[in-house]
Each structure stands twice: as structure tokens, then as C-alpha cells.
């Protein structure tokens, strides 16, 4: 990967993160919008134990000015990382703030939210100096993306038992969409959902298809030959679960950007390839 491609990739990733964060801001789900929540959970995650014991999350949530300042810094560092993509210090600041945001959000939401894991992982390769080392680290993100889906497949087939339960699709659908169907009678989506409930085998087959699609991602651990197809795997998985499980795993798709080829990045040059930093003016030559 050359420097221009790194610039485009950094802007693509930080741009996607900023878009998702803006959505969260509008949803009153960034720190400044949450008020001072009182319930929390750390579970058995030792990192969360240390984070809670540090007192930082409580301090941020109990001081409105601190929460607002945090959001300003989070978005500000993201915008700066987008404009100056080769400045690793700016990316480091954005990455740290993103980790603090994610952990604080999850801590007071009283649950660990799988789709936010991408926020913690995605910027790590961009902290590596040198294009050759960065290219290798970014390639690692691609392998990690494949591994995540393979692990999800193993959880459902080997360590868990959901794959072997033939009604999993319809029962998940009913559990997750019961509030939508009850509160929104007469909408087009409700009519579509009710049609699917009259044909539950489609929901059950679709759920098995999604699990198998997760398993297919194992191919990516051994070859890059099929990347142009594999990139669509997570898109289909999270698109389907968006509508049929009412879960917003779209946020995890930032990891899917690791499947983009150098050629695809080159195609984005007209949009994202503007100069990374103003060039230093050449020193005027002094006539002797």
C-alpha cells in the first residue's frame, strides 16, 4: 500500500466512524446526551473493572461540562484525523477517546454491545509507522475480520447449540420484534413481518443461511482470491439481521473495510485523495 492509498483508507475509516458517531449524537447516545445514568455493570471483564475503579467514567458522567467537552474532543480529533490522515498522534487521540466513549457507553448501558467492538479495534493498525509495516498491520485487520465471523460460527455450532434448533429464526424474530409489531400496527413493515410470520420456515432457513455465511468467512483465513465476494458476507449478514432481528450490527461493518483492495482505494482518489497536509513552501533561493 502506498502513501496515497493509506491516506484514502484512513479517511474512509475515520469518515465512517464520524458518520456513525454523528448518528449516535443525534440519538442522544454520546456522553453529553446521556445525563448522569446511575446503573452500571462491569461483569467479569477485568479491563472494565480497572476502568470503573479509575473513576474516569463516573467523573465524565457526573459533570455535564466534562461530558460536553469530551464529545467536542471526540468529534474534533476525528475530524482532524480525517483531514490529516498521516498524523498518527491525531489518530492516537481519536482512538483513545473512542475507546473511552465505547467503554463508558457500555458500562452505563449495563450490557456489552458486540457491534461497538469495532470502535475499539479498527484504528489500531493506523498507529503503526511506515507504509510497509502499516500494510501488514492492516492485513491483520482483514484476518481478524474473518476470524470474528468464524468464531461467531463456532459459537453457534460447537460451543453453543442455536444452529441445531430449527425454530431459532422465528423465535429470535418474535422476541426482538414483538415491541415493534405491537406498537406499530398498520405499517408496511408490519405487514411484511406478519407475512413472514405466516411463513416461518423462511425465517428459520434465513437464520441458518446467515450462520453458514459466517462459516464461509473461514475461506478468507487461507486465501485472498475470493475477497471480492467475501466483502459482501458481513454486508448481507448485518443487512439481514437489521431487518429480521432488529439489531444494529451495521456499526461492525467498519471492520469490513479491511477487504477493500488497493484498486478499490485508487478509485476513491477523486473523492478522498485531496492533499493530506499543505506542502511546505520551498525556501526562496538567495542570489549569491
Amino acid at each position, binding site marked *: 500500500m502506498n502513501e496515497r492509498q493509506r491516506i484514502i483508507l484512513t479517511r474512509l475509516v475515520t469518515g465512517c466512524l464520524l458518520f456513525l458517531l454523528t448518528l449516535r449524537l443525534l440519538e442522544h447516545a454520546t456522553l453529553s446526551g446521556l445525563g448522569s445514568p446511575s446503573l452500571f455493570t462491569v461483569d467479569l471483564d477485568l479491563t472494565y473493572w480497572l476502568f470503573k475503579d479509575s473513576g474516569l467514567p463516573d467523573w465524565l458522567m457526573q459533570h455535564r461540562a466534562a461530558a460536553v467537552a469530551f464529545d467536542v474532543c471526540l468529534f474534533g480529533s476525528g475530524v482532524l484525523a480525517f483531514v490529516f490522515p498521516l498524523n498518527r498522534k491525531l489518530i492516537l487521540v481519536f482512538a483513545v477517546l473512542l475507546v473511552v466513549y465505547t467503554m463508558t457507553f457500555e458500562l452505563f448501558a449495563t450490557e456489552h454491545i458486540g457491534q461497538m467492538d469495532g470502535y475499539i479495534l479498527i484504528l489500531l493498525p493506523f498507529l503503526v509507522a511506515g507504509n*510497509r509495516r502499516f500494510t501488514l498491520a492492516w492485513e491483520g485487520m482483514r484476518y481478524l475480520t474473518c476470524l470474528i465471523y468464524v468464531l461467531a460460527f463456532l459459537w453457534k455450532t460447537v460451543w453453543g447449540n442455536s444452529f441445531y434448533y430449527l425454530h431459532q429464526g422465528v423465535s429470535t424474530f418474535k422476541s426482538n420484534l414483538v415491541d415493534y409489531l*405491537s406498537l406499530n400496527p398498520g405499517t408496511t413493515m408490519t405487514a411484511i413481518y406478519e407475512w413472514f410470520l405466516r411463513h416461518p420456515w423462511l425465517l428459520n432457513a434465513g437464520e441458518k443461511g446467515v450462520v453458514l455465511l459466517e462459516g464461509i468467512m473461514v475461506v478468507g483465513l487461507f486465501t485472498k482470491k475470493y475477497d471480492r465476494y467475501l466483502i459482501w458476507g458481513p454486508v448481507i449478514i448485518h443487512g439481514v439481521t437489521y431487518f429480521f432481528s432488529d439489531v444494529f450490527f*451495521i456499526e461492525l461493518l467498519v471492520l469490513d473495510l479491511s477487504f477493500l483492495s488497493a484498486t478499490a482505494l485508487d478509485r476513491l482518489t477523486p473523492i478522498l485523495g485531496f492533499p493530506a497536509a499543505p506542502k511546505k513552501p520551498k525556501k526562496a533561493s538567495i542570489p549569491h
Partner: protein
Amino acid sequence: MAFFTKILGQSWLGRVYKVDKPLFFILTLFFSGTVGFNLLKLQITPFFLWGMYSLKVPETATYPYLELIYDHGHVLNLRHTWNEPQKTYFYGPLGRYVYDKADASADPFTIYMETVWRKKHPRFAGLTQGLTMTQNELDRYPSWLRSYVSTVTGTPVDEVTVLQKRVSFDASGAPVEVSSDTVLHFIDGRRPARPRDRH
């Protein structure tokens, strides 16, 4: 042997090893940790577990959900999937508050920490005091819920009622309400009465 050495050398990790040994060790540790912690079924960030929906969701006759009603019968309806960050903040802590019946000592994590973990690791017990919820924190919850409903709806809210509804699905796929219990009701953030009136 030479064949495997060649294969490993050409692999991604092999190439990382040739270029940058510290990076190789970091990445090897991270990938091994990710697989290892998933095998152990223990999450320690950033070694995440990827077991969402791995357990059977049994099909039942009725399905529960919490309905939040504010000021004079307005129902909070977060209808889009992209509202999920907001939904998480409403229904995650709310479910927990309702499940614990507003009693901090009923929290399963608190019970585990007190009856198992702190007895097993008495030296570290002091470090874990802030990790379990206090009764004061639970008592502050209704007031926070009221303020968050006000923020989200954009109107000052005084009264909040939460109903736990149970719904079944008829042959056409339409939901049919089976029961509705008031699990939380408060006015102006005051400590809630928790009637169990069946409507």
C-alpha cells in the same frame, strides 16, 4: 520441515516476522488471546467474545416486552432499528432495574461478588467495592429515566409508567396482548411505588 518453513515464511505472520519482530509478537499475542479467551468463554477487553445468539431462543406461547408511557398516555415508540443506541439505554438499565426489583442486594453480579469472588480473593476485595451497585445508585435511577425521556422526547416529563406486556401471535402473524403489568410508576422522579396491578 523445509516445506513448512517455506509456507510459514510466506504467510502473513511470517512476513510480519521478517519486517518487524515486536509487531509480530503483539499480533501473535492478540490473535492467540482472541481465540484463547473465546475458548475460555471469558471476555477481557480487547479480547472479545463473539457468541451473540449462540444459545437457543426457545419458542414460547407468549413474548414479553416493556412499554414505557410518559405524561398522559404518550407511548415511547423507538420504531427504527437505527434507534438501537437509544433503545439500549432505555431498555438495558430498565430491564435490570425491574429484574432486581429496585433492590441492590438482589443484583446477580453483587451476589456473586459477595458470596464467591471476595471470599476467594480477600486481598483484592477492597478494589472491587466500587464495582457493585449501591442502593443509592438504584434509587437515583427513576430520576435519571425521567430526565432521559425528557431529553429524547424534547419535552419536560413528569410522569413515567412502565408496563410489562406479554403478547402472543395469532395465525395471521398479528400480535395479541395477553397481559399487562405495571412494573414501575413514578411522578416527578420521586421514589416509585411498585404496584403489581393487573390491567
